[in-house]
């Protein structure tokens, strides 16, 4: 009993420290998510005001594999209410958002903290072995509660029912905490914060795919996915409160597992041991490009595996979408109205958008890596060598941007191969591959702007994530919510023709590439004019 309390000594203090460190981050997460929900809630309420509009939506969406993959099983669409429609449009994305918050924030307060030298100072004080983990989880719980509460309050304020709002808020909290616990376990296995985040986000990717396959099949497979646990609460579709027990029980179990893993490992180490490296550098490492390749290699390979898996998945499901067409004449009319593309093409265009967004997310994180190198002081010895700043930044940009384009190609080809295998149409491989490649200007523009921020306004470098988040939200939700075009035009992805569903247009591609080139060039100029370091 004594050891149990001792291992938690100092938790309260550490919790206060964690909340103090995140006093800006948590409000940003809460407010931006709440804003997104509020905006969507308002649009859905207005777009589907009449029963006729609502049943029209339901006819288009129900039993439509393409929609099920993106949105979920579509609970409550038999007699659709605005609440059910809103949940179908929004819930999966907000669940993913709280999962990302859970993963990133947990790692930030546990494994990432352990990598720093200050963690030893903290541990040398009378602070228990599990105090940091408990404090970190408690801080995440506070953030998730605030977020869930804000979302629920906003739903009620926009005129949605209170029971559904409470159910959705509770679902967000449960799923967010389940992923926090997954991240906590990942932080015991991996010895670096990047690897821990990578493992936990890979679990999130797998959770998305598993629930998509499960929802399309309509079987029990979905229950293997934490995202489904949130949707299974069925907010605004005859709430099933008992489903909430699943994420909370799993969270408790994972926290226990993490605790026993922590007892078995060294402070600062992971369960996976470090191997010795080379005594001498190979010729490949000689120079800035070699170093950048080495630094970006691990993350790029991880993203490539994820994108390839998602691509294959989208490709294989595309065939299901086509079979649905036979049963759903409305959908055929809808697509005909869109300009005559096939439903497979429309579905694959959504797939390439998701792959493009992932490539953009990778590129933003890779560009910010450059800034991390600078603040950690690792760039000083490089710049103390006869290497210009421009050469340093271009080495990172060239490697990161090439990797992003490679991700697009890998994801596109994987989707094409998946679709070709199930539909028997071999030409899809090239078409979808090219469609994904045509996405390139959007992530490149995003990456170049992120770089410009790092170079010209390094304190605001993290705002690149806001830009990415906005682009993703617009890309995935704009059509369903009927957002005005001046809002949607902020996202570079909106300007790319939705291949292969619509014909190719070169102009927006060229304009976006020019934006990227100008931002990159401006960044190269800005970086030579400022102080290097923790500016």
């Amino acid at each position, binding site marked *: 009993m004594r050891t149990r309390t001792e291992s938690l000594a100092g938790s309260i203090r550490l919790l206060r420290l964690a909340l103090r460190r995140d006093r800006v981050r948590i409000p940003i997460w809460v407010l931006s998510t709440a804003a997104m929900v509020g905006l969507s809630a308002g649009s859905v309420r207005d777009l589907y005001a009449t029963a006729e509009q609502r049943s029209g939506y339901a006819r288009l969406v129900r039993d439509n594999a393409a929609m099920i993959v993106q949105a979920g099983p579509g609970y409550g669409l038999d007699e659709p209410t605005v609440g059910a429609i809103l949940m179908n449009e929004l819930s999966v994305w907000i669940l993913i958002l709280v999962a990302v918050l859970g993963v990133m924030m947990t790692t930030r307060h546990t494994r990432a903290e352990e990598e720093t030298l200050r963690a030893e100072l903290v541990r040398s004080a009378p602070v228990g072995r599990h105090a940091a983990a408990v404090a970190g989880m408690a801080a995440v719980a506070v953030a998730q509660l605030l977020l869930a509460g804000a979302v629920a309050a906003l739903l009620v304020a926009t005129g949605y029912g209170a029971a559904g709002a409470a159910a959705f808020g509770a679902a967000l909290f449960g799923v967010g905490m389940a992923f926090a616990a997954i991240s906590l376990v990942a932080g015991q296995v991996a*010895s*670096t914060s990047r690897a821990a985040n990578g493992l936990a986000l890979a679990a999130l990717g797998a959770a998305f795919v598993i629930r998509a396959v499960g929802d399309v099949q309509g079987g029990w497979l979905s229950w293997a996915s934490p995202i489904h646990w949130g949707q299974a609460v069925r907010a605004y579709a005859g709430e099933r409160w008992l489903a909430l027990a699943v994420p909370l029980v799993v969270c408790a179990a994972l926290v226990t597992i993490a605790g026993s893993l922590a007892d078995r490992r060294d402070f600062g180490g992971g369960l996976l041991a*470090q*191997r*010795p*490296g*080379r*005594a*001498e*550098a190979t010729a490949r*490492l*000689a*120079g*800035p490009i*070699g*170093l950048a390749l*080495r*630094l970006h290699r*691990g993350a790029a390979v991880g993203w490539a595996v994820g994108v390839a898996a998602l691509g294959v998945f989208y490709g294989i499901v595309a065939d299901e979408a086509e079979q649905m067409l036979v049963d759903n004449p409305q959908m055929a009319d809808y697509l005909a109205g869109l300009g005559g593309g096939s439903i497979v093409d429309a579905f694959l265009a959504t797939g390439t958008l998701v792959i493009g967004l992932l490539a953009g997310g990778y590129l933003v994180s890779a560009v910010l890596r450059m800034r991390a190198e600078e603040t*950690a*002081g*690792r760039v*000083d*010895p*490089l*710049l*103390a*060598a*006869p*290497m*210009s700043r421009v050469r340093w930044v271009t080495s990172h940009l060239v490697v990161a941007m090439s990797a992003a384009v490679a991700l697009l190609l890998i994801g596109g080809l994987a989707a094409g191969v998946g679709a070709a295998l199930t539909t028997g149409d071999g030409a899809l491989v090239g078409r979808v591959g090219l469609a994904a490649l045509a996405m390139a200007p959007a992530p490149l523009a995003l990456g170049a702007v992120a770089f410009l921020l790092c170079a010209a306004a390094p304190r605001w470098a993290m705002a690149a994530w806001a830009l990415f988040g906005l682009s993703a939200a617009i890309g995935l939700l704009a059509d369903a919510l009927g957002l005005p075009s001046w809002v949607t035009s902020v996202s570079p992805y909106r300007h790319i023709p939705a291949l292969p569903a619509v014909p190719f247009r070169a102009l927006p591609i060229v304009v976006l590439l020019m934006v990227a080139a100008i931002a990159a060039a401006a960044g190269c100029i800005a970086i030579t*004019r*400022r*102080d*290097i*370091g923790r500016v």
Partner: protein
Amino acid sequence: MRSTESVIELRGLRKAFGTTLALDGLELEVARGEVHGFLGPNGSGKSVTIRILLGLLRRDGGQARLLDGDPWADAVHLHRRLAYVPGDVNLWPNLSGGEVIDLLAALRGGIDRGRRAELIERFELDPRKKASTYSKGNRQKVALVAALASDAELLLLDEPTSGLDPLMEAVFQDCILERKAAGRTVLLSSHILAEVETLCDRLTIIRAGRTVERGTLAELRHMTRTSYTVETERPVDGLATVPGVAGVIVDGQVTRFEAAPEAIGEVLRRVQSAGVRSLVGQPPTLEELFLRHYGVEPAAPLEPSGDAHSH
């Protein structure tokens, strides 16, 4: 003593971070072929100065010349000729020490394999370990080997031996003396005074972003009073009234005082006439010099002797 060509020349250097003034008219001159000690309390601006010399920070005012160029504008060109060791070495966690050494060398345009091997052996470094598993001292060794293997004409060392054990400290001192014998120039920022005393020809002491003292160790000592202990048959007459003498303490037949060099003649005359039995003079240690300039006075308080370095 002073070579005609200076390798580093900083005049009235100023640098502000927001409203905080980091450097406020700093002066530094390092002659070719010398090992120059760069001293000052924590936060006095040593690292900022070195980062300006490296072109990582931009000066807000004053003149700076490094080798034959401007440290900001000609950074890349100048860096071919210098090597740098930071006091807080942060390395890429997934690269081994050997890889880091080779990478930095490759950026500088190659490395003498023999010297690399020799230095790794002398510093007892395991080049196969990943940087994330090195101790602070070992990370420091990686940076030292990379810099010393480069044969650069100027070494900028910012507390390069923090974290080294005494054996490695001795190896480091040998290496620096070898570099000096080979005609290389070294700017050494350090808090290890024995190291500075052994290695450095000249010193610059800074405080709060300003140069408070510079010169050879002998010159600096010359400007400071030496402590004397004399034993005399009779009390020494009027010692305290001699200009340049301070801190007179009489303890029976033993008198302790401090005297500036210009007062020595008069002091000796008076001591002699008091029937001197023994006389011991102790020049100020670097530590005493240091403490004076760092703002903490040594045990016996000194009165201002009228020259510039009082405070």
